[in-house]
């Protein structure tokens, strides 16, 4: 009986998942690039002051502040992930360009965006762990240099592909 319940629950979860996928696809149809303030993000993930706060503040206040910080960081990571996803989608069309250098640059951008998505997943996992255990310090430090490289590559792609130069390069 238990196994039957599990199987039925799985099937119902599948139907829910498909419904959510359709909704998310409709939502994503209007998805576009959103800006990320990298210097602010860098300040947020630089946690040298965390030890000071830990020493000076009562534990409850420290935990509350740290969780607040994690929530904001997670929003930034979410925005970077969303932009990387939009780049994946936008560069897919450019990858079939008849100009080899444009196609190669688009392939590089796609590759990097995919790596950023993986890094974002890792960052979310780390942030979740930190949220559960605020005394942990797991900074998603790899994300900033990767995102900067992506920006540079997208800009290069924009230079090569004059038509999409302004929007794609300046949007992220």
């Amino acid at each position, binding site marked *: 009986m238990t196994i039957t319940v599990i199987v039925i629950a799985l099937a119902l979860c599948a139907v829910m998942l498909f419904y959510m996928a359709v909704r998310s696809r409709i939502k994503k149809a209007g998805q576009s690039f959103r800006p990320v303030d990298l210097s602010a993000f860098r300040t947020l993930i630089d946690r040298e002051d965390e030890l000071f706060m830990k020493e000076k503040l009562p534990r409850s206040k420290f935990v509350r502040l740290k969780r607040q910080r994690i929530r904001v960081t997670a929003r930034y990571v979410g925005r970077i992930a969303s932009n990387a996803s939009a780049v994946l989608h936008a560069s897919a069309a450019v990858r079939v360009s008849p100009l080899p250098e444009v196609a190669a640059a688009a392939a590089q951008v796609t*590759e990097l965006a*995919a790596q950023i998505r*993986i890094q974002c997943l890792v960052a979310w996992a780390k942030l979740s762990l930190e949220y559960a255990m605020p005394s942990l310090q797991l900074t998603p430090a790899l994300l900033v240099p990767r995102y900067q490289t992506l920006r540079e590559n997208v800009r290069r792609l924009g230079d090569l592909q004059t*038509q999409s130069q302004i929007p794609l390069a300046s949007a992220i």
Partner: protein
Amino acid sequence: MSGRLIIHDLWIGSIVLQVALAVALLAKRTWQNFPAFAAYIFFCLFEAGVTYALFGNKVAYFWAFWTCETIGIVLGLAVVREIFTNVFSPHPALRKLATMIFGVAVIALVLLACAVIYVQSANATGMVNAVLLAAEAARLVEVGLIMFLFLSSSAFGLHWRQNVFGIALGLGMFAAVDLVTVTLIGHVGVTTQLAFKLARGVSFSASLFIWLGYLLVPEHATSGAEVPKRDQLEQWNQAVMELISR
């Protein structure tokens, strides 16, 4: 109108839809990009024809139906594999990781299917129940893999091409409803069995509509107009800055 008559009408309707889908596949040359899906659709059409012809002969119908169902499930799994390749092949950075997770998912689902067969085999007396149990295990693997595809592509932020999304959605919807049907149909009375058969027929027809719709409607192209204007970007930027300085 009786339940049996509705099921019969649905059957005829689904055959008409399958013919339309087969014509669309041929006309749009979709079979070149999705050979497994095309094979699945043509086989479903063949199955519908054979089982309709054998409907009067109960024994022949039973064997023809379940043989075709087995082949259909195998082809369904091939379609899942095709979707996976289609979604992840343009992204070499993700493909390796996704293939590894896909392998783990296959092993986990096969183990779950084996557990289902092991636990329920004691109650599955007779040929019909044994066949239903095997179908349940196979559908479980199929539904699980389609769920994995949706979850992983969402986690990696991948945008599915319209026809790939349609194929996965249609197959997933039908497989999920069929999983519920084959799991419960052996444990319920005749009237409820009829309701399950009706639900299965409706879901298959709905899947055919989904496939037809996604194959026939032209794909929405990404345009430059979707990218936000600079002042809009600055407004968003300002909002995030305010969020940080809170």
